[in-house]
């Protein structure tokens, strides 16, 4: 594990991505900008679930609950003082005084801080919940985490003083732009990638493949599961914060089963356990959902999109159960036609992926 060393081709890719974003920003195409931000937020959510479930095999249906925690935490933290006292008059004193709406020049550092705090809050909750739930396996853990999602929803609906209950939470400052969303998305992809090819990541995959074999060679089960669960919660909360400051008004109903199912579809289609697959699955399902939404709008057959997406999902599970990528990764060098010098003349050699 060397220190942070960015290979030249990664740098080129990042620059190309930044160039694309800058072009999109300048183009003023509001629809495509919105779609790109949505894409980034979904990438973060899917990578979060990928770590928590794809890497470890512990199926979590609760990560949208962490997204909700992140969205509400950061939305409350960034409310300006004037709005806050009027909008949430019964907020507990210690919370009412905080207003992370400061900016240094053009940079809203308050938003960044609030997003981090949101992530940390979700991590603490995930640590507590995960320490208990990660002992379960199979569909029992899926249902237990679904229980967590329901609990979060009930609490959000009832904690009127803090969340406004079932009323819409609006007045959120629209901080999220292309740069914030994609900056965090790149971080999410990078983190997932580094974890996957680290010793910790291999422990996650090992206990997924065979619990008893992993135990017998001294790999603990609980620790990698818990770390993955907590890391996924952090990223989900980040996505929640970005979402809150993108959509600017929301209610607890958003963070429920439909969104959970959408994120799962993206992950399963892409391949559980594949970092690049998660991005591909997100892009594919997002494009499909958007196209179907257009068709629904044109034909007025609302519901058709949901049916076709679910049929597509079942077809993937029946005919390609490991998704597009399985646990493999896209070989970027090959896709882009780049070939490092050491591999010239050995076209079929497996690339070595050190952490």
């Amino acid at each position, binding site marked *: 594990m060397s220190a942070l060393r960015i290979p030249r081709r990664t740098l080129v890719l990042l620059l190309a991505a930044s160039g694309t974003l800058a072009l999109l920003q300048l183009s003023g195409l509001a629809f495509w900008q919105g779609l790109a931000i949505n894409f980034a937020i979904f990438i973060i959510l899917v990578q979060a679930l990928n770590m928590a479930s794809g890497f470890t095999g512990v199926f979590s249906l609760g990560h949208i609950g962490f997204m909700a925690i992140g969205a509400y935490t950061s939305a409350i933290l960034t409310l300006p003082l004037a709005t806050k006292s009027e909008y949430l008059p019964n907020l507990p004193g210690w919370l009412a005084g905080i207003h992370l709406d400061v900016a240094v020049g053009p940079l809203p550092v308050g938003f960044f801080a609030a997003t981090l705090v949101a992530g940390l809050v979700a991590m603490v909750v995930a640590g507590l919940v995960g320490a208990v739930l990660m002992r*379960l396996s*199979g569909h029992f853990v899926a249902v237990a985490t679904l229980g967590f999602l329901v609990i979060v929803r009930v609490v959000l609906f*009832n904690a009127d003083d803090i969340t406004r209950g079932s009323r819409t939470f609006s007045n959120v400052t629209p901080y999220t732009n292309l740069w914030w969303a994609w900056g965090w998305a790149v971080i999410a992809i990078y983190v997932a990638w580094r974890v996957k090819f680290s010793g910790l990541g291999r422990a996650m995959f090992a206990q997924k493949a065979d619990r008893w074999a992993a135990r017998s060679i001294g790999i603990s089960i609980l620790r990698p599961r818990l770390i993955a669960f907590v890391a996924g919660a952090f990223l989900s909360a980040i996505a929640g914060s970005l979402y809150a400051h993108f959509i600017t008004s929301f209610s607890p109903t958003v963070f429920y089963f439909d969104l959970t*199912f959408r994120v799962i579809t993206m992950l399963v289609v892409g391949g559980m356990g594949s970092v690049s697959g998660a991005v591909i699955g997100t892009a594919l399902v997002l494009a499909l959902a958007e196209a179907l939404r257009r068709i629904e709008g044109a034909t007025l057959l609302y519901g058709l999109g*949901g049916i076709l997406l679910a049929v597509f999902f079942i077809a993937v599970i029946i005919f390609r159960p490991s998704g597009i990528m399985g646990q493999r990764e896209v070989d970027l060098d090959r896709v882009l036609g780049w070939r490092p010098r050491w591999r010239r003349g050995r076209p079929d050699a497996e690339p070595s992926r050190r952490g």
Partner: protein
Amino acid sequence: MDVYVIQQIVNALSAGSLYALMAVGLALIFGILRLINFAHGDVMMVAAYLAAFSLFAGLPLPVALGIMVGGTVLIGLAIERIAYRPIRGGPEVAMLLTSFAVGQILQNGTLLLTRLASQPIQIAFPTPDVLQGVVAIGRVTIPKVNVVGFGSGMVILVGVMLFLTRTRTGLSMHAAADDLPAAQLVGIRINRVVAAAFALSAALASVAGLLYASQAGQINPYLGFTPVLKAFIAAVIGGFGSIPGAVVGAYALGFLEVIPTALGGIADILPVGAVSPEIDDLLRTIFPSALGSYRDAIVFLFLILMLLFRPNGILGGGAREDVP
């Protein structure tokens, strides 16, 4: 005070019957296939719509009920044949996810059809007259639907028990649930048994759908989600896969659900001066009247605790096969 207690007990029993009808359907299928059929709630929702549209069409009640049960059974069979059979024996989570997708199809399909029929998303349920009104026993008034729900639930459940223990098909289901390959080896036709289990579970869900819709008074395509979760909890309480356990668990859940509401209101129903102000304050602090609105959260917390400490149900042992 007495009236309050009796009413809460009746509420618990009637909710318990509804959950039992659902939980038995879940347990039947889980026992044989190890599949948590989350689409079960949506099957129940479809039954409510079938009943509603039949009644809207002016059909007499028995015909409408026939269409409801028959249509739901057909849908249950179709789901099994198209979606679940290809992945039978696959990973647990793949089956669970498929059932979610099936649920989405049923929800969106219902949404689409109600749109095509130019109906709003939320429609008032044409509750049959036999289920309307209240029954008064002394000072206690009980909604008729709760009485009928409890009674019919009991009758149907006894019928199911007899079916499962006295008929060839029922015993085949038992055998398949015990050991699927062995059952196959002794010549039990698994496809037929599984189809029968889905048909029976859909029929039970259709009755639950009618009761639920009559209680709620209105229906929408998403109403199945909470009942199926509750039924799942009931099945877990009773030890998943056990049919009698599911029934016991369902009534236990019915009572469990009433407790937060009942405790939340406890300080209000005590006669003034019955307890000292300190105790009254204490009661209001420990059991705020808002406790009732946290009911679902409390119930799910209980589910998580059950999964952790008594995964085989209240009656089963504490051992868990999947401890890492």
